[in-house]
């Protein structure tokens, strides 16, 4: 049977890449990067799933068939890296808007 989660990963990444290439508004670029990053995070998490697996935590776990833990550690780091990138981009956008008055990548008129 086709593994559907991997197809959603590809859809997310291509949507992000499409928006990155075609959209001209800076905010949409940030959204595109964020969508691609969540696509890659979903890819990492679905790699580690085991049929009927439970979260790898031993406090009152229903059974001992557990999902792979390293992938979740990688995704935790990747989510925090994505927060840092989006925070930097948004603060740059705030100041670029102050300087150029518009968020369109084509219109490059500097205010002062």
């Amino acid at each position, binding site marked *: *049977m*086709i*593994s*559907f*989660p*991997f*197809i959603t*990963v*590809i859809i997310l*990444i*291509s949507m992000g*890449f*499409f928006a990155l*290439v*075609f959209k001209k508004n800076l905010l949409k670029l940030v959204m595109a990067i964020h969508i691609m990053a969540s696509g890659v995070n979903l890819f990492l998490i*679905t*790699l*580690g*799933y*085991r*049929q009927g697996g439970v*979260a*790898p*935590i*031993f*406090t009152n776990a229903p059974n001992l068939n*557990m999902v*792979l*833990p*390293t992938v*979740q*550690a*990688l995704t*935790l*780091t990747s989510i*925090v*890296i994505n*927060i*840092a*990138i989006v*925070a*930097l981009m948004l*603060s*740059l956008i705030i*100041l670029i808007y*102050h300087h150029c008055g518009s968020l369109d990548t084509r219109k490059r008129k500097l205010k002062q």
Partner: protein
Amino acid sequence: MIKKITIIILFIFLLAAVLSLHPFGRPIFTKMDDYFIQNGQKETGSNNIVSSVVFDYRGLDTLGEASILFAAATGVFIIFRSRKKYV
């Protein structure tokens, strides 16, 4: 027009790559993760194996990640250091 073609080619290339992966839910090589699940509690003493992987087995990643957050906060501080005088 060329950009649309490249996007479609990339989509097909990714689709072919992902479909040749292992079927969802049945990973092939899991010896590293089984090692973590078997001796995670014994070696690190914590029930939450993900926390033991994040903080003990792969501690350098978490150190890098915390310094990434510190660098992001410092970067935002540099960018907004003085909205009034712009120096």
